[in-house]
């Protein structure tokens, strides 16, 4: 804790990503202060997912820096959890052949102590570890109201339940920053409210406070839960501010209207419930 402090959050400065001749992101700067919820919006292809991939280390930026906890940050996907960052995936990303609770238990991978020898021999130590992990994971499911599905195979669960299991898996890592990729995508209107309440409660969680960066198409949801909203279009940052500032920003309207005037209305207004697993 010499230079940096755990309270300086995530900042992205001047990030550019180039795929061949295509600029997916151009000089994007934003920050996620501690204990805040930041929303990332923009039309399809605006670079939201690319930015997520930069922050979680799947894509290396061709220019720009990241800092996390006040230190320069070169993310690698498998190190994120140890650094206090968890991410959910747009395709839900559950392990389809494992049960819901096993999925969540995998979120606690970094806490596993049992090694190969005790696993091969089935020693009592590893069983104790396992019981503890199962208890915590079941609590994690319970927090999202899906504990009754704990022993069902993930691929057999309804889509909204899958989304919550994935969220539970991210939360049991006890992250200080949570990256949510379309948390409300595919959910029905009746699922919005509890999800919004949960997201809003994360920064103030007495046990493990956590800031949130989320990508979302549902504008009602974004405006309802976010402290700050960042608008991307064609890889560039168009606007940033509080939800009310954004809603009255003409540049934002242009960005959306320029692409597809119905896009935002339809997404915000219509609640689509997916009952089957997306292909």
């Amino acid at each position, binding site marked *: 804790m010499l230079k940096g402090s755990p309270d300086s959050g995530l900042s992205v400065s001047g990030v550019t990503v180039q795929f061949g001749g295509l600029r997916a992101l151009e000089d994007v700067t934003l920050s996620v202060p501690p204990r805040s919820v930041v929303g990332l919006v923009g039309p399809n292809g605006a670079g939201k997912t690319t930015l997520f991939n930069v922050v*979680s280390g*799947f894509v290396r930026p061709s220019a720009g820096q990241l800092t996390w906890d006040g230190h320069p940050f070169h993310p690698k*996907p*498998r*190190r*994120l*959890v*140890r650094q206090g960052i*968890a*991410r959910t*995936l747009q395709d839900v*990303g*559950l*392990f*389809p*052949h*494992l049960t819901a609770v*096993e999925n969540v*238990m*995998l*979120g606690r*991978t*970094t806490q*596993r102590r*049992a090694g*190969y020898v005790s*696993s*091969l*021999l*089935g020693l*009592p130590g*590893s*069983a104790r*570890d*396992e*019981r503890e*992990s*199962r208890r915590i994971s079941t609590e994690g499911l319970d927090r999202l109201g899906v504990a009754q599905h704990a022993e069902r195979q993930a691929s057999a669960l309804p889509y909204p339940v899958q989304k919550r299991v994935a969220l539970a*898996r991210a939360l049991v*890592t006890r992250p200080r920053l949570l990256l949510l990729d379309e948390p409300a995508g595919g959910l029905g209107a009746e699922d919005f409210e509890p999800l919004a309440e949960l997201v809003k409660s994360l920064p103030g969680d007495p046990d493990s406070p956590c800031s949130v960066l989320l990508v979302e198409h549902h504008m009602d949801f974004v405006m309802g839960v976010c402290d700050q909203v960042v608008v991307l279009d064609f890889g560039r940052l168009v606007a940033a501010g509080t939800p009310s500032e954004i809603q009255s920003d003409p540049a934002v309207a242009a960005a959306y209207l320029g692409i597809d005037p119905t896009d935002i209305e339809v997404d915000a207004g219509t609640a689509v419930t997916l009952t089957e697993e997306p292909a």
Partner: protein
Amino acid sequence: MLQIKLVRHGLLTLAAAAVVALLVLQSEDVSNFEYIQVAAYVCAAAGLTLLIGVNGQLSLGHAALMAVGAYSAALYLRSGSEDSLASAGDLFVALLVGSVTAAVVGIAVGAVAARLRGPYLAGATLALGACVVGVTTYFDHLLGGDQGLTMPLTEVPAPLSAALTSYQWSALVSLGTALLVLFLLTNLKYSPVGREMAAVRDHEVAAQLCGLSVARVQINTFVVSSAAAGAGGAILGVLYLQIASPGAFTLFLSIYLLAAVVIGGLGSMRGAVIGTVIVLYFGRLIEDRVAHLGLSTAQTDRLAAHLPLAAFGVLLIVVMLAVPGGIQGTLGRIAPRLLQLMETVGGKK
């Protein structure tokens, strides 16, 4: 719940050990000789089940890892004086040497395999299998070339020598080893480590985001799988064939194992056992039926040698076409039906 499972595995293994011991003591030498082969295949098939079924990595070269087990066991046993019998201690150490050497080779192969996917991995492991002949020929002063390395005979330990024939002793050791391998791999499969293997199979990106190194999990799985194959190879070489030679570890052996694993349902250790038994005994049954067709000796030999393989080929295709969507679990349903079929075919004798 997990603990119940682990206790159950332990009890099941003990019960199975008792049944196996009784079976071996009741059986003629001919049957006991066959049990040795079953045990060797079960070890390798269990290892392959962990690799393909649990971790999602395909290997068409497990025969090569069995060869490593057989050859290293042979080298260890031959390092003693030339024509003495191998004691029980020597035998156990030889099996261990076979398993550990294969595991060490498995580190190298696994490190490569972890960087490959799908057809690339299948092709590379196929190429690995094709190397056995070349390596044994090139190092023929050490590995005996085409002729291979003969093994010293094993000796029944003194306190048991009055009660057990040599074949009974060999069958006990082989089946005991197979049970140990099954016990260990089942524990592993139901442990957090096994869950991580499955997670990597199901979704590599999500596994990374859970903090897993995909490559490390894949290499570890390959090493454990290789160790099991090495133990199987050592049993096959030392106790069944009594020789380690390149002709015993061909592509066909790898395919036999693949067939056993696929028929057994890809993923369960019990399935690996059932699949192995089906593959070996289905083959025997076909040979048997062929012998009763009244063909000339040459024709009978030809059919007996190749018809079982053709049957497994058809079986592999049918199983894969019948379950086009996924590989997990559902295939296990086919095993009981096959057992029924075998009984019907066998009953006609």
